[in-house]
């Protein structure tokens, strides 16, 4: 009851005209930043942090600036899906998994359905996460603390396992793709020892590593573009799109077909978001993997499954709320974006830490209230803009291809302000095209470059604890079961293969 009264009080503050206006503004800015390839919520929040001072000096409290930045965070989670679906370039790292099925569905002429599914799934994911946050923040924070290095590593192993154990795909090629991603993830300075690794040809550009967006934009922007050009040499691929609100409404009515992906994404995304060092990108990729694994029709994934769109989109929104949890209850960031938000809280004169809930209720509850409000605003704004986004799809590919090319270049440069990364991105794109010609799945490589930099230090820190003894991953109460499940999942396809062999022998 106590929580409900505090939350109601919070709603009242969040709905004050200024705060509501800031939430709308933040959502629109976030939508744009998220939709622009290369820019994500981190850039949006970091760039607009100084602007919040103006808001603070206007209102005299830290609540309004925080509501604004949190709205950008949410808006960006919605926005990322837009270019993933309409252009096939992930708008932000958090929306990479959305391209897997969003783009194919759009190419089938159902872009409106893909966009609506993404928006509604985002809303449900965000709202489920908000409810969980409101009800269980303190106990969940102590669960997050139980996750030490071996536990996080076990979880990362599980994430890889969901991608390997999917079945259907060519397992050796999937593993090869993961290995490419893992090797690229080790390029640059090593966190544990501080030594440079794999600085190819002594090019200093490699010293900061092969960045995630370089790979993602290369594969899905340039690589995909060359692929489409190649496969449409003798005809034009122009998606037929009818723009009307009645079609949008019809898509909303059909949303229930994606309920399973939405639920998986909401809960898994929220939980992964809570864990420090993870954040929304691994959360959405893992949810996609789990949704595909538990699906009755896994073969539909990658060809335009609505569950495959709903899972990562629900997850990235749920994870962004989840990442707020350690930030607000412990003063520890759960994602790069919350790290910037934390810096903001310090600048506004707050002391983040376990006492924030008790010492600053006037800050905490309106902010939680604004999470709900921003989510509703983001859904409405997004649905209203869908006809506009669809207009992009009506461009003939001869115009769209150069546009994708330019956006890929600009997006990569915007993300890292560095020409080396732009060239590398183009190279990656060309390589991705040839790998695809040879039927190599590329999503596992993208997953590996996200999870590799999280998993590797955790593996090494764990082994430092245990003096190199791998049993640390099996003997701890939380890490043990997770590791065992992960190993079973990795071995599962092998069992299937053996079973098929045996059956084959019997019939012949």
């Amino acid at each position: 009851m106590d929580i409900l009264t505090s939350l109601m009080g919070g709603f009242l503050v969040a709905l004050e005209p200024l705060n509501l206006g800031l939430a709308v503004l933040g959502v629109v800015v976030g939508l744009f930043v998220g939709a622009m390839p290369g820019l994500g919520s981190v850039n949006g929040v970091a760039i607009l942090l100084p602007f919040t001072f103006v808001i603070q000096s206007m209102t005299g409290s830290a609540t309004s600036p925080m509501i604004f930045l949190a709205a950008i965070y949410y808006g960006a989670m919605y926005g990322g899906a837009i270019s993933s679906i309409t252009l096939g370039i992930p708008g932000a790292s958090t929306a990479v998994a959305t391209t897997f099925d969003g783009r194919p569905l759009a190419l089938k002429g159902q872009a409106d359905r893909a966009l609506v599914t993404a928006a509604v799934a985002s809303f449900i994911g965000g709202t489920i996460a908000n409810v969980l946050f409101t009800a269980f923040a303190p106990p969940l924070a102590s669960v997050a603390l139980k996750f030490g290095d071996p536990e996080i590593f076990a979880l990362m192993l599980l994430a890889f396992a969901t991608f390997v154990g999917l079945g259907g795909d060519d397992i050796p090629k999937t593993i090869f793709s993961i290995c490419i991603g893992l090797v690229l993830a080790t390029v640059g300075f090593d966190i544990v020892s501080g030594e440079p690794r794999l600085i190819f040809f002594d090019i200093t550009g490699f010293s900061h590593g092969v960045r995630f967006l370089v790979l993602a934009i290369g594969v899905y922007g340039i690589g995909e573009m060359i692929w489409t050009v190649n496969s449409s040499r003798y005809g034009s691929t122009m998606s037929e799109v009818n723009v009307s609100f009645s079609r949008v409404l019809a898509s909303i009515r059909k949303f229930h077909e994606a309920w399973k992906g939405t639920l998986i994404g909401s809960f898994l995304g929220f939980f992964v978001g809570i864990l420090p060092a993870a954040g929304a990108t691994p959360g959405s990729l893992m949810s996609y993997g789990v949704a595909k694994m538990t699906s009755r029709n896994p073969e539909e994934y990658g060809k335009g499954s609505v569950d495959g769109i709903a899972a990562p989109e629900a997850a990235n929104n749920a994870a962004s709320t989840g990442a707020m949890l350690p930030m607000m209850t412990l003063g520890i960031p759960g994602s790069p974006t919350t790290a910037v938000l934390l810096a903001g809280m310090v600048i506004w004169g707050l002391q983040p830490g376990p006492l924030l809930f008790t010492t600053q209720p006037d800050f905490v509850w309106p902010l939680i209230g604004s999470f709900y409000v921003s989510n509703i605003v983001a859904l409405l704004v997004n649905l209203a803009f869908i006809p506009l986004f669809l207009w992009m799809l009506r461009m003939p590919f001869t115009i769209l291809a150069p546009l994708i090319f330019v956006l890929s270049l600009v997006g990569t440069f915007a993300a890292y302000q560095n020409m080396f990364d732009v060239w590398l991105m183009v190279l990656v794109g060309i390589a991705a095209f040839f790998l695809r010609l040879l039927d190599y799945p590329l999503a596992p490589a993208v997953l590996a470059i996200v999870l590799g930099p999280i998993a590797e230090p955790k593996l090494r820190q764990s082994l430092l604890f245990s003096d190199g003894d791998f049993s640390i991953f099996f003997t701890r109460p939380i890490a043990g079961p997770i590791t065992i499940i992960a190993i079973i999942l990795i071995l599962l396809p092998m069992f299937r293969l053996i079973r098929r062999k045996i059956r084959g022998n019997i019939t012949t």
Partner: protein
Amino acid sequence: MSIRKRTLFTMIGAAVLAAVSLPTSVAAFEPTKPIDFVIMAGKGGGADKMARLMQSIIEQEDLSARPVVPTNKPGGSGAEALVHLNGASDPDHTIMVTLNSFFTTPLRQPGLDVDIMEFAPVGRMAEDTFLLWVHKDEGVSSFDEFLAVAKERGDGWVMGGTGKNSEDNIITDFLNSNYGLSIKYIPYAGGGEVAKQLVGQQITSSVNNPSEALGFFESGDLIPLVAFTDERLPMFPDVPTLKESGGDFSYFMQRAVVGAPGMSDEAATYYSDLFTKVYESDAWQEYKSSKSLMGDFMAGDDLKAYWDTQRARHEDILKASGAIN
């Protein structure tokens, strides 16, 4: 007459011109494009929060005609950032906020070809302090008890810190070699993560800066045992210094702003003035006292002399621990 008159006018004109132009020519530099503000650590850590606070003070008080744009380059204990500054294409618009890895990383990695004395001494904004922290459930409430328990547990006592051969590692090595301990040191990506590991009791102690552990100190989860400072910290009046406990050791982290090698003197003067104003602002002074930071503003040759002594000291420390030859 007329000629003389003209000469006189010319002379007066020249004198006036000189009088007007002299003071301005000293501070002639003005940034003409956004200033690249490099942070040699990741997002969310002490250095990052500090850099973003400086940025907001500059923004808020309208101190610079061009915006200051923070970029994090955390790779290789600052190596990525140092290499970036060393090769800066426009040194007059490239500055960096430093940690002590500014001293240690070039010493450990001579291959980077970084000479810190070539960096422009813009200003030292503070010296951060270190305390030894344990979890409240550890049952240790003084430095002597810590020594006894840590000795008994051997390498079962685990210290978490930020990176290898970092400030935290140096302090841990000092404790190990001077008190006969064999504490195991585990490097993490940042001070915030170390604090979280300690609160979750994944590790047994840390040497966090006050700003990193303050929230958990106020909630009572973490207890400071000893301060590695020369005098007791105003914020922790009950925590003795290591010197009081008989150890001859104190250790600080420089929180300074430096300019890229090759920065012109005019630009260096401009940035020194800029950060003097930041230092003198109420917001900075309040941050400094609330996060238990010490040290006064220092710039120019004083700062270079400070770097020289710090570099020599870190060379000794790293040699003693065997990190370098």
